[in-house]
């Protein structure tokens, strides 16, 4: 059994199966850990992921270790798939360790349709979804709003959507934090950010964001699947997007403000994109309030897309969405930082848990888990590529101890977008998916399909296998794409 591995001059020691550690040395405040099989580690070691993870250990207040999830890859400053739990009193908060797309996340809607019910309707469904769910650059949103409305969304999240008739009480109860961050403060969001957001409320965007109709192909845990309302052959809908230009602008604004106000801290860090505001500083409080507001915006964004999706299903299948059983299973963020209490060396401490391309995965019993799932654990949704399966997991029993209650968020890219466009032709990928796998894809451009071709992603099965082996997320069900729309 290999005991050490080296990539680009960085040595990792094998702690146990799927746990690799970069020991503390030099400027590192704590060790770094990579959770990966040997095969996934080969991918992770190819780019700058390990160096970025090592850099992240230099953030003041980093607790126990900086972590890289099994789907980790190079980001900017902090790696994607990174988890950093930072002391909320003596440490810092870092916009770069959250990501530009604040509360980029996924939600899953159930239906009571089976794959057989849907067969024959795929083209109409994909076309109608594409026409009714705004996507791409400049595609507008489900609603056109003004600054005043944006501010209400920022402050109130899903409560605004309920009041406006876009969401139900059940939607609220099945969303992380019930769709509203308590510390959100619209006053800390710039006018620029609000201006970018006002014509994007209810829009997918582009890149790796998508809406996918899927069928459940496998059930691995009957009792948990039953609690989640999932059964074999059932049709579900997965929506993946974030806080759009508003969230991106919040991150950009605070990176610059932190650079200007806390240059001394920044100078001690190895990468400008790790820019961090000291905990208890005015700017840390302002960023936390602005980030919370952007989180609310993202929940409303996904909710308005949910509203459109329900309307489309009503039209295509000729029944009310309630009669089609289109309830929200769960909505979970994967670019976020939250102050959470965690046990560290026998002591409960408040930590800013930064999850950038990582999903909260709280086990059964935690009060943060919606009441409906508290006995079985929080649903975790891990999308694969548009040619591979996705997974529904539940938070694993070991997650609090091993990963501050976190697991992976997806398959993770292995190929650059420029390389993907050289290796794949969008229309060919689209035709092959439809002819060979009965997956109907519609996108704003062929280039988007090429950039997101199934071959550019890691093996999601392996990501989930590692998550399960470590006990941080247990596979409950697997799904396979039927229709996919992209920006």
């Amino acid at each position: 059994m290999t005991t050490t591995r080296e990539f680009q001059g960085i040595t990792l020691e094998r702690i146990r199966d799927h746990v690799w550690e970069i020991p503390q040395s030099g400027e590192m405040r704590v060790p770094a850990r990579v959770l990966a099989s040997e095969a996934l580690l080969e991918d992770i070691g190819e780019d700058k992921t390990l160096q970025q993870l090592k850099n992240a250990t230099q953030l003041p207040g980093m607790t126990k270790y900086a972590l890289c999830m099994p789907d980790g890859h190079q980001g900017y400053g902090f790696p994607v798939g990174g988890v950093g739990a930072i002391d909320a009193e003596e440490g810092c908060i870092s916009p770069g360790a959250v990501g530009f797309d604040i509360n980029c996340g996924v939600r899953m809607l159930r239906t009571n349709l089976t794959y057989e019910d849907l067969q024959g309707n795929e083209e109409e469904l994909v076309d109608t979804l594409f026409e009714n769910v705004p996507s791409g650059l400049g595609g507008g949103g489900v609603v056109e709003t003004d600054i005043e409305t944006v501010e209400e969304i920022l402050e109130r999240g899903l409560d605004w959507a309920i009041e406006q008739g876009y969401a139900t009480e059940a939607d609220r109860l099945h969303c992380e934090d019930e769709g509203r961050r308590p510390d959100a403060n619209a006053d800390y969001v710039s006018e620029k950010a609000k201006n970018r957001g006002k014509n994007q409320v209810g829009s997918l965007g582009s890149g790796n964001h998508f809406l996918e109709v899927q069928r459940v192909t496998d059930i691995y845990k009957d009792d948990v699947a039953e609690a989640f309302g999932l059964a074999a052959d059932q049709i579900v809908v997965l929506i993946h997007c974030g806080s759009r230009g508003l969230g991106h602008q919040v991150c950009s604004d605070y990176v610059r403000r932190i650079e200007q106000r806390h240059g001394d801290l920044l100078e001690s860090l190895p990468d400008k994109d790790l820019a961090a505001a000291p905990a208890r500083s005015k700017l840390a409080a302002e960023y936390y309030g602005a980030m919370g507001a952007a989180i609310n915006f993202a929940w409303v964004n996904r909710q308005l897309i949910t509203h459109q999706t329900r309307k489309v299903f009503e039209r295509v299948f000729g029944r009310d969405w309630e009669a089609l059983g289109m309830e929200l299973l769960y909505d979970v963020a994967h670019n976020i930082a939250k102050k959470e209490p965690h046990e560290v060396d026998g002591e409960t401490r408040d930590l800013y848990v930064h999850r950038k391309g990582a999903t909260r995965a709280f086990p059964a019993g935690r009060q943060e888990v919606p009441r409906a799932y508290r006995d079985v654990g929080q649903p975790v949704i891990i999308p694969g590529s548009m040619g591979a399966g996705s997974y529904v997991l539940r938070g694993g029993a070991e997650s609090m101890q091993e990963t501050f209650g976190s697991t992976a968020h997806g398959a993770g890219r292995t190929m650059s977008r420029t390389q993907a466009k050289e290796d794949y032709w969008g229309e060919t990928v689209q035709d092959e998916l439809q002819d060979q796998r009965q997956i109907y894809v519609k996108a704003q451009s062929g280039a988007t399909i090429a950039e997101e071709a199934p071959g550019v992603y890691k093996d999601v099965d392996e990501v989930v296998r590692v998550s399960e082996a470590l006990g941080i997320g247990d596979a409950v069900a697997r799904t396979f794409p039927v229709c996919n729309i992209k920006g």
Partner: protein
Amino acid sequence: MGYELRAHTADIAVEATASTRGGLFAALADGLAAAMCESTPAGGDRFAIDCRAESLEALCYEYLDQLIYERDVRLVLPVDNEAHVTDADDEWTLTASARGVPLSEVDAREVKAVTYSEMVVDRRGDEWYGYVVFDV
């Protein structure tokens, strides 16, 4: 002289050179447009951009961030960029303009944000060199 798109695992990078600082900034901005759209039609009105910052890198960040902002609020793709950079009293100033092609006339993909990751804005020999990673 000009720009090239460079590979990055999840995102995209632009590498550019020019004989002047302003030329370099304009080339990086043209690279940003190319990262979003392969070809752009004629037409569209020009608009002006002004930025100030405490360093050249910060000015580059502010400029490219402003272009992304203008794209989202004007609903145009900023192309054919022109820029002029000056420094005085420890402050860098940029005066620039772009031709805004309506997004409705192009198939463009979104670049979310400019990043500081691996950013280089530097004089190398007799030319200016820049490298910027964008979040996609």
